[in-house]
Structure formats: C-alpha cells, structure tokens
C-alpha cells in the first residue's frame, strides 16, 4: 500500500507533501502554545543570557531611570518601584513567581516585595513578601513557631502553638500583654481575627470636611449604634482624556457592605471644564465597629467636601490636599512622613511634630522623620498640593484620629517597640552563595489585564536614585508559573 503510494506519486508531489506537513506541524505547535489546553505553562527570563529568539513573555523593566542596565551583566534596580509586563496568550487563575536576585541593600531597606496590578483606577498592586530582613533577624533572636504556613514569633516563650495564641487573641486576653492586643502585636502580610475597640469612645458628632483632596483616598470610620451618613461632593477636573468614574466601597473586615458607582459620560475630555458630582451613602443599623470607606477615583477627580454623621474619620496612609488656598494643619499617628510636591508653587518648609523640614524639589519623594515623642504629631503646611504618605492615619482634628490597624513589620518597625508577638504569612528566601531565591504566589482572577498583559511590580521601599547610597538589587532571573482552566473545563464548564 505504502510502496504503491510512493511509486504512484511524483517526487515533486511528495516533496510538497513533506513541506506542507512541516508547515502544519509548526502552525499546530504555535496554536497549542496559544490555547495552552492543559491550563499550565511557565514563562521565564534569564537576565544573564544575551540570546533571545523572540520577544519573550516577560518584558523589560520600567521606568528606565530606576534600572541600571550598564553597570553589570544583569539589571540593577536602583529606584523604587519598578514594573514589568507579562504577556500571556490567554487568561490564568494563579501565578507563582520565582525571582533569583542578589541584594546589595543597606539595613534601612529591609523589605523586598512583589505585586500584580489589581486595580488600574487607583494603581493598586496586590503586594506579597519576597524578603523581610527584619523578620529574618527576629527569627534568629525570638522564639519561632511555624504553623499552617504562618510564622509566629514571641519575645518571651509564652505559647507553645499559634492555635493556643489565637484562642487567647479571640478572647482578647493575651499573656504578658497589658493594654490589649493592639499594644503588643505586630503583623506582616497577615490579618488576625482581631476586633478593634476604641478606648476613649465618646458620642459622635456630625462634621463637614471641606478641605479638597485629589485622587483616590481611603478612610476609617468608627460606629457604635450610630447611623452612617456620608454626603460626598466631587469635582471632575476634565484635564485628562479618559473617563473618570467614581466608585465608593464601604466595607468591614474586607467584606463589602455597600458600593456606589457614578459612571462618567466623558462629554468634555481634556477641556478643563469642571463637573460637580455627588454621592450619598446612608446605612442604618450597622453593628458597632470599624468600617473602611474606599473612594476609587483617578487623579482627575477631587473630593470637594465630605459631610459625615460621625467625626471619628481617619484617612488611611495617604492624603493629597489641594485648592485649600491657605495654611493647613493635619494630624498623624506615625513618626515619619513621605512628602512629594508636584509643582514648584508647592515647595515650602513643612512643620512635622514641631520640627521644620525643607521640601525643596518637585517630583521627589522626601522622607521626614520626627523625633517628637507625642502619640499624635501635628503637620503644618503653608501651601497645599503635596502628597503626604506614611504607614499610619491622617485626620484634620486630633479628636478624629484613631488607628484600628495593627503595627506592621515594615521598614519603620523597631524591635524596641512594645510588640511581643508577631504573626506573619512569610517564608524566608533560600540563599546560596549570595544568590537569593524567593517564590511568591498571586491570584490572577481579580488582576488587571490589558492587551494580553498583566502588570507586575517589584518594590524595595526606601530605595531611591537620588540618595548617595549605592544600594541596588541585582535581578538574575524571573520565572512565572501560570495555572488556569484547561480547554475541556473552558468548553464544558
């Protein structure tokens, strides 16, 4: 049969058949790589290799000024943060990133984190720990227990297991801990089952915050048998060309209670014509406790005014006051402040905790640390349009200030604090001849994907190009293992 076939057809026909078969196999191979029918694939980039046959899947680091490509054979991260995109031919549910690096970072930059973009309106990345030298040090000096993938550290050996400690935490009575768990517990990448109780509670009074704030903000409110009414006014500046929707999310313990959304018809993009908008949130019969309000807006929108039924309202981590036309006084509970001015008109001397700090350059983030010992520090601004950030909370009045979140083992954490227990969801990276290998996992179901690309970030908080330190992070390899639904699951489920 085969013999008669070979004899029957001409050499030209058989040669064409052979070449056609090669073409068919090549097309089928690339279609297989496009569909990924088994739902699992690994993409990697070895930065020591100079040969690349194609564009690859892991794109170059941006912004270019934060990466030194000339001084070494591999990219050196010299500024924080850096970003890279991952092209995927289809969507996936999970990503496991393995990063091989060598850190030449000083002790005041103990953190390395990696994240995936989950919200492109407020540019929020879901950050996961890569390296935490503070925890690495405490693992050697404190009593360490690893249980259910969590790291539990105790200054004194009070508990034999994490479960035993969690039982005491639920009852609010931890051993060797005066003043409640909030005073002796620190966390990292972990939220314990802990309910904040306000110690100096007083009946709430209605208040109007009429200091305009630009861009996305989040704040806590504390309720105790009170109605929550938030009447918020916004101004769409229409300076950008993209639509500027407004979304408000009210939540408690990461569970959404209600959301409000106001879409933007974007009738006059880039015109500079301002549009006023309003959103009202009214919730009765909410149980006592802390609630988080997230205002998701772009920088093209200003929160003009918030009329609140409760005055215990503290902004989380960041405020960007604008258009106040005068001096501003704010209060914070953190002893450091990151300040960035976006226009020369905003350069000034800032008073923080009674000390003067000079803000003398635009688009540069300044770190100001006060030695004030008061729990609440005053910030006095002569001009607005500066972005203020820290790991604490901000308020316009000392009476509004409260911070329900537990201290974090971040770059400002000190072992001299009152913390006696640390719980973290953290795994120390493995190290061999100075090369560290860390693995982090991301949930891609909620991740933002545009034009087939996921956006990733590598962050070393405090790493700056401008400072004189020669700190850097040498990145040798990034490997991303992706897992998602199989072709059969996509068809039949």
């Amino acid at each position, binding site marked *: 049969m085969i013999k008669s076939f070979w004899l029957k057809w001409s050499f*030209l026909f058989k040669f*064409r058949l052979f070449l056609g078969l090669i*073409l068919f196999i090549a097309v089928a191979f*690339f279609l297989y*790589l*496009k569909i990924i029918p088994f739902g699992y694939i690994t993409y990697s980039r070895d930065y020591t290799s100079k040969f690349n*046959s*194609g*564009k690859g899947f892991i794109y170059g680091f941006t912004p270019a000024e934060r990466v030194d490509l000339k001084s070494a054979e591999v990219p050196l991260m010299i500024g924080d943060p850096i970003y890279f995109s991952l092209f995927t031919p289809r969507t996936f549910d999970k990503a496991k990133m393995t990063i091989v690096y060598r850190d030449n970072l000083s002790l005041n930059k103990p953190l390395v984190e990696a994240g995936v973009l989950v919200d492109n309106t407020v540019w929020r990345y879901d950050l996961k720990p890569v390296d935490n030298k503070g925890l690495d040090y405490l693992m050697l000096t404190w009593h360490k227990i690893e249980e259910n993938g969590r790291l539990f550290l105790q200054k004194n050996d009070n508990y034999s297991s994490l479960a035993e400690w969690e039982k005491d935490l639920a009852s609010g009575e931890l051993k060797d801990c005066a003043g409640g768990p909030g005073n002796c517990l620190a966390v990292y990448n972990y939220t314990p089952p802990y309910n904040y109780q306000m110690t100096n509670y007083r009946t709430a009074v209605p208040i109007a915050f009429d200091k305009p704030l630009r861009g996305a903000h989040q704040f806590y409110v504390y309720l105790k048998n009170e109605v929550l009414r938030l009447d918020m006014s916004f101004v769409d500046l229409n300076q950008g060309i993209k639509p500027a929707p407004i979304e408000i999310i009210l939540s408690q313990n990461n569970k959404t209670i209600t959301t409000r959304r106001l879409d933007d018809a974007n009738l006059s993009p880039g015109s500079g014509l301002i549009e006023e908008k309003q959103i009202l949130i009214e919730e009765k019969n909410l149980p006592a406790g802390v609630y988080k309000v997230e205002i998701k807006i772009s920088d093209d929108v200003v929160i003009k005014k918030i009329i609140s039924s409760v005055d215990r309202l503290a902004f989380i981590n960041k405020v960007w006051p604008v258009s106040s036309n005068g001096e501003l006084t704010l209060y914070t509970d953190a002893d450091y402040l990151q300040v960035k001015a976006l226009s020369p008109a905003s350069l000034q001397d800032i008073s923080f905790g009674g000390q003067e700090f000079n803000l003398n350059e635009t688009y540069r983030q300044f770190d100001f640390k006060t030695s004030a010992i008061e729990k609440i520090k005053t910030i006095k601004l002569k001009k607005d349009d500066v972005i203020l950030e820290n790991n604490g909370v901000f308020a316009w009045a000392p009476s509004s200030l409260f911070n329900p979140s537990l201290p974090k083992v971040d770059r400002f954490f000190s072992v001299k604090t009152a913390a006696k227990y640390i719980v973290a969801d953290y795994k120390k990276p493995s190290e061999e001849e100075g090369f560290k290998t860390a693995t982090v996992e991301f949930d891609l179901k909620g991740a933002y994907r545009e034009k*087939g690309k996921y956006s990733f970030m590598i962050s070393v908080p405090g790493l700056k190009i401008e400072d004189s330190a020669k700190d850097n992070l040498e990145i040798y390899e990034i490997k991303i293992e992706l897992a998602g639904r199989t072709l059969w699951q996509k068809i039949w489920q």
Partner: protein
Amino acid sequence: MAKDLAINMIIREIFYFLSIFLFVFIGLEMVWPNIILAYFNLNYLFLLCFLSGLVSLIKK
C-alpha cells in the same frame, strides 16, 4: 543536466514553502498578536525566504 534541474526545482520549492510559511505566520500574528513573535523572530524567516529566492533566481 537533470541533476541541476532537480536542484533548481528543490530550491524553488523551498522558496515557495518559506514564502507560504511567512505569510501564514504573519496572518496568525495579525489575528492573535504575539502568537509567533513571542517565541520566534520572523526576521530570520524573512531572511531565509529572501536568500532562497535569490539563489533560485541566480540558478535560473
């Protein structure tokens, strides 16, 4: 003589094949961007196609 003709034919067929290969890959790229380029630089294929076309012309 017959051997030369056979070689010419093979070179011509390879040129046709590489041209079709290139157009199919470009078509796939247009429908699903990056399906090929992520793995393979089409410039190499274009170069091969060009060279085979050139050899085919010279031999003719």
